[in-house]
């Protein structure tokens, strides 16, 4: 079964990761604490491309793991369900507050949370800061949105959020920015695919 | 704060010193001294910046109707044109009472 990008994977063995370069110390330290990785876009086989997060914003490390090393997987929508377990002190952070407001307005979609919020929600490790963005992932939209509908949705969500919003629409492996689609700056839109970014006229196909 | 200066050609020299008003919020004071030119001068210090043309309009109207000649000093703490007019007409009243 294909794992969609942004799925969190808990590893059975945190030492069994494969990379082209040597593994930096912070990656080992990070895995020591959490032993979670995030599915990256890319060709999946026995090996799954993943990313490892550090505790700093720019710390990302690309690697692969074996399918057999997966203990469990968590979809972005699983993270959403955990919001009720967040302690009040953390819940007061603007990104969580924004998520609370927004969640009542996306019921027509299958969707979830990515980024540091997803990580904190699943692992319980405090990753979200005062300045964290809110990364939303809309998965498999039932019907394609028109530019106007997307624009309306975006405006609504931006109003409700007090932090910067990054909304990606995921169509299997393909993904594009809702904002770019809604604002319709160019005729074509950049879609990230398994084989790299390409420009498309209609990203919903 | 902004300093403004205006000059109007006028024809009715005043003979008295006049003072009215207070530099309170939304209000202003006017000090009028006799001069012996053929025009009036106005030195204005105002707490609200960017209203030069409004001042000009208020004063033009006033001097059109009442060409009082003298040197005016105005200290303004955010008076509206309506209040400026009211204080100017009080100056007139004081002149009337004393003449």
């Amino acid at each position, binding site marked *: 079964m294909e794992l969609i990008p942004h799925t969190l994977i808990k590893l059975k063995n945190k030492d069994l990761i494969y990379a082209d370069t040597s593994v930096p110390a912070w990656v080992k330290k990070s895995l020591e604490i959490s032993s979670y990785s995030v599915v990256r876009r890319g060709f999946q086989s026995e090996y799954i491309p993943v990313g490892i997060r550090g505790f700093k914003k720019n710390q990302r490390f690309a690697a692969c793991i074996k399918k057999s090393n997966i203990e469990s997987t968590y979809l972005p929508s699983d993270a959403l369900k955990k919001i009720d377990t967040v302690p009040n002190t953390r819940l007061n952070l603007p990104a969580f507050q924004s998520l609370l407001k927004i969640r009542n307005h996306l019921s027509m979609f299958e969707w979830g949370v990515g980024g540091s919020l997803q990580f904190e929600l699943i692992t319980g490790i405090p990753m979200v800061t005062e300045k964290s963005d809110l990364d939303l992932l809309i998965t498999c939209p039932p019907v394609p949105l028109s530019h106007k509908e997307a624009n309306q949705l975006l405006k609504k969500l931006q109003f409700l959020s007090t932090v910067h919003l990054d909304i990606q629409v995921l169509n299997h492996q393909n993904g594009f920015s809702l904002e770019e689609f809604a604002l319709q700056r160019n005729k074509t839109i950049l879609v990230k695919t398994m084989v790299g970014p390409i420009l498309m006229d209609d990203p919903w196909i | *704060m902004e300093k403004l200066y205006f000059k109007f050609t006028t024809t009715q020299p005043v003979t008295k010193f006049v003072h009215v008003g207070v530099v*309170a919020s939304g209000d202003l004071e006017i000090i009028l*001294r006799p001069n012996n030119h053929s025009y009036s001068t106005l030195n204005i210090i105002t707490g609200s910046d960017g209203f030069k043309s409004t001042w000009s309009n208020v004063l033009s109207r006033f001097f059109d109707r009442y060409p009082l000649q003298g040197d005016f000093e105005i200290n303004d703490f955010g008076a509206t044109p309506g209040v400026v007019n009211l204080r100017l007409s009080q100056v007139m009243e004081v002149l009337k009472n004393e003449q």
Partner: protein
Amino acid sequence: MNNSLLELNARERAVALLDKDTAQELIGPFDNIISPHLIPQNIVPESDDGVIIMKGQLKHLNCVIISIEGSFQGGGIGEVGGAKIVSALEHTLLDNKNGEKVYPLIIFDTGGVRLQEANYGLLSISEIQNMIIELKQYVPVIGLIPGRVGSFGGMSITTALMSYIITTDKARIGLNGPEVIEQEAGAREFDSSDKNLIWNTLGAKQRKATGIVDEVIDDDVDAFRSTIAKTILEKKDSNRDQQVNFYLSLIETLDPAHMLTTQEYTNLYRHVSVHDHHLNSAIPSDYPTITSRGRHWFEQLTQIKNAHSDIPTVLHALVNGYEYISIVPDKNNNFPRVRHGEVGLKEGYTVANVINDLIDRDKDKKTKTPIVIIVDVPSQAYGYNEELVGIHMSLAASVSAYARARQAGHKIISFIPGDAVSGGFLAHGLQSNRLIALNDSSITIQAMSKESAARITNRSLQELEQATKNTPAMAYDIKNYQKLGSLFYLISNVKSYDSSDYAINIVKNAINSAISDLENKPTDLSFRYNNKIAKESGRVATNKIRLLMDKQWN
């Protein structure tokens, strides 16, 4: 409800009180004198600087009315307005000394020091207070508070020095406005949005019930006129600044940890059993106490180690012919608001008590004991109980004691090795006839803490600091303060905590030379505006006003 004094502006109030067609304004709007300090700070000035001086007759009695305009900059006292008041009072004194009765009236409508010219305001207020204390020997000095702003800050201390205070029920008096107390001590101490609390605590009715004002009358011009005339003719004087033993007895019965209700305090006030108080000289002890610059120099100059006093916040001692006195911190004091060396209820009255005793002891002596005030006062005490009891009266008691001592011939030197802020400085330092300071950057000298000043003037702390950097009028540091000319001497090579023999000698020499400089000099505060720096730059406007007043008075 139709002949209201409150409704009128300051000028109209003065005219309304005087007999018809007798009012004559001195240094008025046509004299072309505005504050030189406001325009550079982008503030619109007023042609009278918010102080109106009006001579005339009230029921055929010669009066001079000093009326403060509350709606111009909150009635704050700056250099020009302050100098107008001082010079008018000086002439009134002179006339009375010459046997010509002139009755001074002050209409208070003021928040105290004008923060944009804070240092001038503080100096002026101390000079005003000096004049009032001397004038009271000749005529009643009457204060009116019609209301709106009321009387706050340093000018509340001035009200307590008046012979007699007449108000409407719309007047409020307090040393620290509720906003300032909230800023300094928190909303739990004083909630500035609770209007009922404010009016019940600081309002005229409560003040009347507890001896802070003398009469509350209807807001009616005629009522004011007849009450004033009666006060003058009956020579009424509450001697409010000399109730030291009464208040020290009262304060002893008060539990500082409990916020008193107005009713509780009124009861307390009505049932005081008064007894005499005398504070013994400080003695050496074995217990080192927390140090402060004030305590440090008291111990250095008196050579009393770990000085101990029955009132732990007030140290005094007569050493080598000089009376030294200092207010010091006491971290365990039962009054929480004086633990950092602030001047509180007890401190003002205790200092007054010490000085009154000294005046009494020396009253028949030809040579009076010089007094050295060691100044290290971070502020007055900001507290609810303090305001309810009327801390401004405590500060007034010490102002009065120092001023009377000086006027009686005691030479008074203030030595400033520490902070000299606000009401604390007025009560303990500014009534001296010579100021000496250490040139130490740790010294703060000002009318209000920066945080409070920022809040009251609606500026950010940054904006405030920017403004103070450019104007000595608002300086917080001793170096800029010196530019005003009010210091007799700035000791440049001694620091606040120096304890070398060298440093002590320099300070002692400075004190000695200040005292010998006072030989055969006036016993007033004129040195501050008569010296070279003051005349050339520091107090130019003050001196201009004084000259003009000399010309216009008669």
